[in-house]
C-alpha cells in the first residue's frame, strides 16, 4: 500500500467511503432502522451526488462555470422515462429496464451536451456561464411544450409550439398511454429506481470521473484550465478536451436524471429549473472545486440539510441561507485558515486534488 500514489489513495478512500456508507445504510434499512423520511432521501441523494460529481468535472476540473446543468438532468429524466415506459413490454425485468433507461438518458444528454458544447465552448468566462444558463432555460421551455405518447404503433411526438395542442393530438390508439403531457410533465411513471441502483450509478460516476482526471485526458483538461495558451503551445487540442469533459459530464447528469425521473410517479420539467442548476453548483463549490469526494459529501449534506431543518418550519430556508453564507465566509476567512493551520500541522504533500 505504501508505494501507492497519494492521489490513488484518496481515490480508493473515496470508493471505500461510498461503499461503506452504502453498506451501513443498506443494513440499517434492512433492519427497518431508517425512518421513512430518511428512506425517501436515498435515491435523490444518489442522483444529486452524481450531478455534483459530473458538474465538478466541468466547473472544477475543466474550469468552465456552467449554470445549466439541470437541463441535462431534465433531458436524461424525460428520455429515460420515455424509454422505460415504451419498453415495459419488451423488457419486463425492472432492473434491466432501469439500466436501459439510464443508458438512453445518458446517451440523449450526451448528444445534447455535444450540440450545446459546440457553441458554448467557443466562449469564455461569464459569457460561457450565461449561455449555459440560457440553454438550461431553453431545455426547460422546450420540454414544457413536448407531448409524447406510446401505443402499439410506436412512439408519437407532438410539439406544442402554438399552445393549441393537447394530448388528443397524439391520436393514440386504444390502450396507448401519454407519457409526457407537456406542462404536467410525465405522469403515471412506473417507479423503477432503488437505492442499490443509485449506489451503482454513484460508483460508475466516480470511477469514470476519477479515472478520467488521473489519465492523460484529465491532465490535458486541467492544463487547458490552468493555462490555455501554454496548453495550446504544447499541442493540446483545447476545444477537444474541453468538449470531452463537457460531454462526459452531460452524460452522467443524464443518467442521474433518468434515475431521478424513474423514482417518482410524476415529474414536471419545472423541477429542473435554474434553481436546481444553482443548487448543484452550490454542492460543488461547498464540496471544493475539483475535489470529487468533497462533491459527494457536499451533495449529500446539502440535499439533506433543508429536510433536516424542517423542525424550524417557516424559518428553515432562512436558516439554510444563513448556513450557506456563513460556511462560505468561514472557509474563506484567512484568520480561521491560519488557526486551523496551526491546530492541524501542515502536511508535506503538495495539493492532492488540484
Amino acid at each position, binding site marked *: 500500500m505504501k508505494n501507492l500514489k497519494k492521489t490513488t489513495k484518496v481515490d480508493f478512500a473515496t470508493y471505500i467511503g461510498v461503499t461503506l456508507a452504502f453498506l451501513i445504510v443498506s443494513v440499517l434499512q434492512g433492519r427497518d432502522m431508517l425512518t421513512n423520511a430518511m428512506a425517501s432521501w436515498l435515491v435523490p441523494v444518489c442522483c444529486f451526488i452524481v450531478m455534483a460529481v459530473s458538474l465538478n468535472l466541468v466547473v472544477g476540473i475543466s474550469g468552465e462555470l456552467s449554470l445549466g446543468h439541470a437541463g441535462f438532468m431534465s433531458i436524461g429524466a424525460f428520455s429515460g422515462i420515455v424509454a422505460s415506459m415504451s419498453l415495459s413490454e419488451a423488457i419486463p425485468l425492472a432492473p434491466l429496464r432501469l439500466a436501459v433507461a439510464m443508458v438512453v438518458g445518458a446517451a440523449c444528454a450526451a448528444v445534447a451536451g455535444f450540440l450545446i458544447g459546440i457553441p458554448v465552448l467557443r*466562449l469564455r468566462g461569464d459569457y460561457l456561464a450565461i449561455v449555459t444558463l*440560457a*440553454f438550461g432555460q431553453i431545455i426547460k421551455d422546450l420540454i414544457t411544450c413536448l407531448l409524447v405518447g406510446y401505443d402499439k404503433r410506436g412512439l408519437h411526438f407532438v410539439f406544442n409550439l402554438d399552445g393549441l395542442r393537447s394530448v388528443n393530438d397524439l391520436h393514440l390508439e386504444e390502450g396507448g398511454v401519454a407519457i409526457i403531457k407537456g406542462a404536467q410533465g410525465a405522469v403515471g411513471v412506473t417507479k423503477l429506481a432503488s437505492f442499490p441502483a443509485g449506489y451503482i450509478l454513484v460508483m460508475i460516476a466516480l470511477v469514470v470521473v476519477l479515472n478520467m482526471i488521473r489519465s492523460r485526458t484529465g491532465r490535458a483538461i486541467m492544463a487547458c484550465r490552468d493555462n490555455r495558451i501554454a496548453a495550446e503551445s504544447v499541442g493540446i487540442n483545447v476545444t477537444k478536451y474541453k468538449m470531452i469533459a463537457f460531454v462526459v459530464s452531460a452524460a452522467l447528469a443524464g443518467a442521474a436524471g433518468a434515475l431521478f425521473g424513474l423514482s417518482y410517479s410524476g415529474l414536471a420539467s419545472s423541477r429542473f429549473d435554474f434553481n436546481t442548476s444553482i443548487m448543484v453548483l452550490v454542492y460543488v463549490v461547498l464540496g471544493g*472545486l475539483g475535489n470529487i469526494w468533497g462533491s459527494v459529501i457536499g451533495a449529500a449534506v446539502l440535499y439533506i440539510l433543508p429536510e433536516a431543518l424542517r423542525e424550524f418550519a417557516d424559518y428553515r430556508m432562512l436558516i439554510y441561507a444563513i448556513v*450557506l453564507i456563513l460556511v462560505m465566509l468561514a472557509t*474563506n476567512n484567512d484568520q480561521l485558515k491560519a488557526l486551523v493551520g496551526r491546530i492541524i500541522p501542515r502536511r508535506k504533500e503538495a495539493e492532492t486534488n488540484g
Partner: protein
Amino acid sequence: MVFFSYLISGISLGSVYAIIALGYTMVYGIAKMLNFAHGDVIMVGGYICYCAMTYLGLPAIASILLSMVVCTVLGVVIEGLAYRPLRQAGSLAVLITAIGVSYFLQNAAQLIWGVTPKIFTSAVSFPLPQGLTDLGISSEAIVTVVSCVVIMIALTLFVNHTRMGKAMRACSEDKGAAQLMGINVNRTISVTFAIGSALAAIAGVLLCSSYTTLMPTTGSMPGIKAFTAAVFGGIGSIPGAFIGGLLLGIIEAMAKAYISTNLANAIVFAVLIVVLLVRPSGLLGKYVPEKV
C-alpha cells in the same frame, strides 16, 4: 397599429430590464462579481415602496425615495457583510454567497410580508389623453422609458466626469494599481453597490407599477432577464446594458406576438446565444485579448 402596441409593450418591458441591467453591469464592471441577489433587492424595493404608500400613507415620490434609501443601505450592508470578506477569494465563492443572500432575502421577505401577493398601486400613474391610451401607451410605460434614459445618461456622466467615477473606472481596470494610486477600493465598491441598489429600488417600483403583483419571488426572473440583458449588451458597459435591456424586451414582446407565447423565453435566450456567438463579448463589450 397592433404592431405598434406590441412594440410599445416591448419597449416598456425592456426599459425595466434595462434599469435592472444598469445596476447589474455597474456592480459587475467594478466588483467583477455576478450579484445574483440583485433581483431580490428589487423585490425589497417594491415591498418598501408598497408599505410606505399603504401603511404609512406617504405620497408616491416620498415612498420611492424611502425605498431607494432602504435599498441603498441594504446594498451597502450586504456588500460589507457578505461580499467584502471574500474580496480575495475566488469568483465562485462570491457567487455562492450571492446565492445565499438571494435565498435569505426571499425567505426573509416571506416571513415579513407573507406569501399572499400584494397588489401594487401604481406609484407613477397620471391621466393620459385618450389618443395615447388607444395606442396602448400607459403612463407607467412613459415614466419607465423616460427614467431609464435619464438614469442611463446620468450614470454615463457620473462615471466619465466625476472623481468617484474615475475611481470606479480605475478599480474596474486594475484594483491593485488603483489602490497604489491612493484610491480607496473598498469605498469605491461600496459606492457602486449603493448606486446599484438604489437603481434596483427604482426598478422595483417601476416593475411593480406596470405589473401590479408583488410577492417574495417577484425579483428572481426579472433579475435573470436583466443579467441576460447586461451580458447581451456587453457586461460592464453602461450603454450596453441599456441597449441590451431594450432589445431583450422588444424581442420578448415580438416573440410572444408573432412566434409563440409558449416559447417567448426560449426565443429570447436563443437570440442571446446567437449574439454571443457572433460577438463573444456582447454587443458593446470590450474584447480583451489574452496576454501570453
